[in-house]
């Protein structure tokens, strides 16, 4: 499968702060790729480098096969970018904003524009500056979907939005998903989980994992083991075990490389034979929290 986005050893320093440390990101064409990670992980920085808003300190990035540093002008007619902190022309009415954008895009679909305005329930005669944050996001998204972009990049689009608006945004996005690749950075893991096909976890400027959501869900398990007598926890547990803890005869951890046979074998080797073992599938949010906590504990 071709890549819509690919980065190689992308490094970005802001003076002495390393925002990205050799990021290698690969977003396949047609994917809905969720880039998740704690605050300050480098998600926005990575996206701004992809959009050629920032220059990288080292490494390279390609977007739709084009070096991101060459991304400007007409090349943006195939990319839709919406960011939570994007400055829109507040003095423009919604309809004027969409009318203004129209000539820039040869593929602008007027019918789709009208459909999006209806779908997002946008008030055409209101100024963008007078709209609520959620409405502004919807207006920006409408202005980024109406030309059938090949790539849609959304930077924290759900932050601070109420569930109804979130749902409307997601529905609007999904209706375009078949024709586009979507890269979305978000904290809202519950929402992302419902529609993302791929997920990448960025922490302290490094991509800890990047894979299909189904594979991730298969890989992570919440493990709870019950022993006859309280076992002694090993000083060094397998690397794939996160948040290892015990309470009396019960041992819990998160297995990040779950394989039924291999995991059972590891448990026997490290802790002995368990009387009872449960391996519960995890939500993306639980996985994210486990990863984040593990990351903090290792600092």
């Amino acid at each position: 499968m071709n890549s819509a986005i690919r980065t190689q050893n992308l490094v970005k320093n802001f003076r002495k702060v390393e925002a990205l440390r050799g990021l290698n990101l690969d977003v396949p064409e047609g994917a809905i790729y969720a880039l998740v990670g704690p605050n300050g992980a480098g998600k926005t920085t990575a996206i701004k480098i992809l959009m050629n808003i920032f220059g990288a300190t080292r490494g390279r990035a390609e977007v739709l096969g084009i070096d991101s540093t060459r991304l400007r002008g007409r090349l943006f007619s195939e990319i839709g970018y919406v960011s939570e902190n994007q400055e829109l022309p507040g003095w423009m009415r919604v309809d004027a904003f969409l009318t203004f954008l129209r000539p820039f895009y040869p593929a602008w679909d007027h019918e789709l524009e009208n459909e999006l305005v209806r779908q997002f329930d946008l008030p055409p005669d209101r100024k963008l500056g007078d709209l609520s944050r959620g409405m502004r996001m919807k207006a920006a998204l409408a202005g980024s979907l109406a030309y059938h972009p090949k790539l849609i990049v959304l930077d924290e689009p759900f932050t601070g939005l109420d569930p109804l608006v979130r749902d409307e945004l997601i529905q609007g996005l999904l209706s375009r998903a078949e024709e586009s690749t979507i890269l979305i950075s978000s904290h809202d893991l519950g929402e992302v989980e419902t529609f993302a096909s791929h997920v990448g976890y960025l922490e302290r400027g490094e991509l800890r994992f990047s894979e299909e959501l189904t594979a991730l869900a298969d890989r992570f398990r919440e493990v709870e083991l019950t022993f006859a007598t309280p076992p002694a926890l090993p000083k060094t547990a397998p690397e794939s075990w996160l948040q290892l803890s015990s309470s009396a005869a019960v041992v819990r951890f998160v297995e990040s490389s779950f394989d039924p046979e291999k995991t059972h074998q590891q448990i026997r080797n490290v802790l002995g034979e368990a009387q009872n073992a449960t391996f519960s599938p995890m939500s993306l949010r639980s996985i994210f929290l486990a990863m984040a906590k593990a990351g903090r504990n290792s600092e």
Partner: protein
Amino acid sequence: MKLTFHIFWKDARHLWREIAVSLALLIVCAWSIPREWTDAGPGLVAATGLAAFSSGFLSGVFGIRLLVILLPVSWLFAVVRAIQSDSLVGNRQFWLTRPYDWRQLLAAKCLFVLTFVNLPLLILDLYLLAKAGFVPTHYVVGLLWMQLLIILILVLPIAALATVTTTVVQLLLSLLVLVLYLVGSSFLSERIPASKFTSTEPFPTILLIATPLAMIVLQYARRRTMLSRWLILVPAAGLVLIAVFAPYRTLISRQYAALQPGEQPPIQMALGKNLGTWGIGGHPDPKQVGILLPLVISRADPGLILVMEGSQVEVDEPNGSPWDAGWRSMNSMQLLPGQNITSVQFAMPTGLYQQLRDSDARLRVTLAFTYFRDASRRTFVVPAGTFPLPEGARCSAPADDPARMYGRPHALMCLAPLRRPASLYMTMKLNDSTCALPENAEPLPDDSTGSAWVHSGESAELSIDPVAQFALMPLMYSNLYHPHELASSDHPHVPGWHASLGVNNSTSQYLHGICPGTPLTLSNPQKVGDMQITQPFENVHLPDISKLPWR
């Protein structure tokens, strides 16, 4: 191109209030400026240095021309808002990830300037020229040059600042810094008097035009805001470096050529009457003594007009080594035919002054000047009404209005297209004035002559008014006293110069003006050249030369 217009229209719609205000001010200017031509009297516009202000902004501070100042301000405000509406500073602007081509964006902003600054100004200028009685189409090249000046001098620097700022307030703060810099530069310029009359061109002009251009292109093409901001320091530092390190002596000797062997000097100097020790003062620096050296100028050709630019005084120290006071500006002081007294001011270390005060010193005085020779002399009788002069100006002598007699003499009031005449010299026998004199008017001596000289550069001046006003007012120049010196001293015989409006201070001196029927002599003095002349003076007793309050 289509997208350029699209962005342009977006700005035009967004900034309709700013555009409306500037157009309203333009209409007010179109209404008020012609009134100022008729209202401005010779008391406001003299035929000497003050004429330089006649078409500029300063005269507008008094009265309705304040509106004329507001017009460029309204343009600049609209331009700043247009540039900042698609801000180049920051990384959150929506348009950064839209198919904006920087060339189209820049072209849209240029189109905004052309449409809402240049085009209205051009229409205003065409209207004003026609209103003043000139054929506008004859002056298209000059008008375009004025437009270019407006862009380069007014719009370009402000536009460059707008590209590196996000709000008008931020821009005003940067302008404040700029004003502080200009104050500092003028202070520096005062410390380097030679910089006032020597040209270091083309470097300052190149710096002042190339830097904002570079900032604008860099911002639009690359949005390198920090680099662009640093670029502002290039002309700022460059101009200071040029001012401080320019080889002024070389520049002066190149610009004002010394007399060649065998060449007859156009003027000669002699020391004027000793000034005595009146006027105790001195230099702000207690280690310096301010000295005024009176000079009497004699001309090889009595018709020469001299524009005194700079002076340098060298004094031989008691041990024989020369001490050099350095070049000082003489502020383009004009010596018209008949005027022959000038003075050279310099500061000397108090220590050296004390050494020399009891002995006779040897001085060398060098004057750098531009001189003009009278040409195309003809007589002319002022007709009634408005009449054209060959120089392209349209003039009129006011009807004899007794109510206007007192306080200012009748002058020839003229309007010229784009700029004042390159060189127009007028003389008249004051007793030939046809202006009505009151019965109790005192008679003037037979040979009383009034004169006026108007001259300007070769190109149109920076102004929104393409009609230059000037007055030919017959002033009688006498070799009397400098008013400043008279005011600060009770010594009655200090030679200096004084442009007197007559032979005494009685009201009759104001009555011998130009009215219909007055015969004048007009000529067009031509520039002969720039020159410096050095003359030694032996046995000068410095204490006989007055110490002056430092000016």
